């Protein structure tokens, strides 16, 4: 096992030495053309690991899915403008989507969960205020890619923990 590992390590080192910056640029161009430069798991994991506010907002959206902006800002202890900018960054990574209540009512987007949550939120409000919020509010929803990403990350974490426990025993 160790010899194989060392062989692979040597191969990787040789490849790293032989490749120039131009090769990397070529690969990057191909990825950008196919639109896959941002949507691979290692890139997203690294981004979430590096950026604290991004991670906080993502966790808040997971907790309240679908989440209003006020819920996100309360949960993450960040201001609303920073939450908005982080949510748009998450949207660029395709982890989070935005659904307007107006679109759901006009049947442009089908999302029953958002409709239910909005009705629950506005059930004690007068009609006029209800219509005001209907035109204005939007909910942040986790996409299917985001859900699969979370699941995989959770499984990876659990495996890592189990291995560590075995080592300690």
């Amino acid at each position: 096992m160790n010899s194989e590992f060392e062989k692979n390590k040597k191969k990787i080192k040789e490849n790293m030495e032989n490749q120039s910056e131009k090769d990397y640029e070529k690969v990057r161009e191909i990825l950008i053309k196919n639109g896959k430069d941002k949507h691979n798991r290692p890139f997203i994991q690294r981004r979430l690991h590096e950026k604290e506010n991004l991670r906080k907002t993502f966790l808040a959206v997971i907790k309240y899915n679908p989440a209003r902006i006020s819920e996100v800002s309360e949960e993450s202890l960040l201001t609303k403008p920073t939450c908005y900018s982080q949510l748009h960054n998450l949207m660029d990574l395709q982890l989070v989507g935005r659904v307007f209540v107006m679109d759901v009512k006009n049947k442009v987007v089908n999302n029953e969960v958002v409709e239910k949550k909005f009705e629950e939120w506005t059930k004690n409000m007068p009609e006029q205020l209800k219509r005001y919020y209907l035109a204005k509010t939007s909910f942040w929803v986790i996409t299917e890619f985001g859900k699969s990403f979370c699941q995989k990350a959770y499984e990876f974490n659990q495996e890592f923990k189990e291995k560590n426990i075995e080592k300690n025993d």
Partner: protein
Amino acid sequence: MEKTEQEKKVIEVLKTFGKLPTARISAIVGIGYNYIKDILSNLESEGIIESEKAGELATYWKLIEANKNE
């Protein structure tokens, strides 16, 4: 100039809805706000769409009438 898939999506959305603000276009197409701004400004410079200010902050986008039938 060949249009990317995302630019085509934006044009389709504007064709079906007529006039929309930037936030709603980004929500329907599913692209972040900063990236969609670049796409919209590119389309505006090509003369396919035009912007319309509503109030101090909101900007609405719509297709130029000559491009509606394309």
